[in-house]
């Protein structure tokens, strides 16, 4: 029963996205513009940004995530979908999981474009050999982003100036994720190729994901307790 509800809610988000193509396209464009700005922002005009690969990728993806997470509840709020969901016999936990999965899928869709672009445009180092490790890092970081993003976007949903509140709440919580994901990416693609460092950062991301999953499970009922 719950699995069917979960699948239905995730399909609802994805179908809406496939019809409008608003969020993912905007996120990809934003990420590309962001990377170009960062390239010039570094002030080096260098063809090889291998040393900065972790930072370049994860600063871009963190801000892109804020954009995506901010859009994730638009239909629920503007089309009053949330009213329908709240009166339907759907456990809050299923709503949380469905929204987290939708955000995770958005992030993976963006990274399918962004991660190869980083390798093509900015990095001359051993990037492609490490693409598998980068993908695992990205998936772990995406789970962290999806869980924290779902909780914080739920909190920001009915506040005044919610578009401003979400980044203020979400970005500080994302900093440890950016530190770990950028560190892990740098460890495998930034020159040193230190697998023990990569493992340490990935375990940190896993710990973050578990912690935020527990916090979300414990508190999400109260977010929509109106």
């Amino acid at each position, binding site marked *: 029963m719950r699995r069917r509800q979960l699948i239905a809610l995730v399909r609802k988000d994805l179908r809406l996205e496939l019809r409008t193509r608003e969020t993912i396209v905007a996120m990809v464009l934003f990420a590309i513009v962001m990377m170009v700005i960062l390239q010039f922002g570094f002030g080096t005009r260098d063809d090889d940004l291998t040393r900065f690969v972790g930072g370049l990728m994860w600063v871009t993806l963190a801000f892109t995530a804020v954009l995506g997470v901010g859009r994730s509840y638009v239909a629920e709020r503007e089309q009053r979908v949330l009213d329908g969901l709240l009166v339907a016999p759907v456990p809050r936990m299923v709503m949380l999981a469905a929204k987290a999965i939708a955000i995770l899928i958005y992030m993976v869709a963006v990274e399918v474009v962004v991660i190869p672009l980083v390798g093509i445009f900015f990095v001359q180092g051993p990037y492609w050999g490490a693409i598998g490790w980068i993908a695992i890092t990205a998936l772990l970081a995406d789970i962290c982003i999806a869980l*924290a993003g779902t*909780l*914080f976007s739920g*909190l*920001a949903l*009915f*506040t*005044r*100036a*919610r578009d401003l*509140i979400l980044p*203020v*709440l979400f970005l*500080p*919580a994302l*900093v*440890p994720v950016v*530190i*770990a994901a950028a*560190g892990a990416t740098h460890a495998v693609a930034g020159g040193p190729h230190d697998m023990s460092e990569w493992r*340490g*950062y990935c*375990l*940190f991301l896993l*710990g*973050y994901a578990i*912690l*935020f999953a*527990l*916090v979300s499970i*414990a*508190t999400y009922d*109260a*977010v929509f*307790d*109106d």
Partner: protein
Amino acid sequence: MTPSLTTDGPVRLRGERAAIIWGTIATVLVVVSTIGVFLVAPEDADQGIIQRIFYFHVAIAIASLVAYGVACVAGILYLRTRDRRWDDACEASIRIGLLFSVLVVITGSIWAKASWGTWWVWTDPRLVTYLIVVLIYVAYFVLRSSAEDDRKMRYSAIYAIAGFASVPLSFYSVRVAESFVHPVVFTGGGANMPTSMLTWFIMAQAAMVALFIALLEVDLLGRRSERALHMLTIRLERG
């Protein structure tokens, strides 16, 4: 609790005595530990006088974590009971914890200047992550100011719980990144200092925790007074 209008003597509020007791304990402990830290504790052979800031730097850091822990527990209790007194305790604890955290960053920065010659060291993850903890808890007040009534208290409680979840991440980050600069006072093997220093460190720690409790009691007393005054005004206006 609302005070009675029929009393002839001064109106007394619940928690007044606790505020006085904790205020006294905190004052004594702060004075004694300050004298002990600066005049009695031995000077560190390597770092000299600047090491003395660590007695307060670490003690305030731990006291701020206690404050965030209390806020988290108060947040959980608010969500369970919906009693606004827990919301008061949650907000007051975070306010004091934030004040302590800012002091941690400032004292850490002073130590960095004396030890490393620079006010800020980005390669030290613990100091940096402490800054993130400050940013997380500043956002608590932004969230609080942009929601109303029940939602304000509910969202604040949830955020206090989520914010506290970030605190162990702050601690763990130092182990992940393997910082080589930040001295680790407490390790798995125990305290990394001699007994003569540890005594004064414990005293400074007790002083900071007592100071937190005293400030919390005073803050909560202020809120109770405001509410009691509000209730009295309403009753007087009704005649």
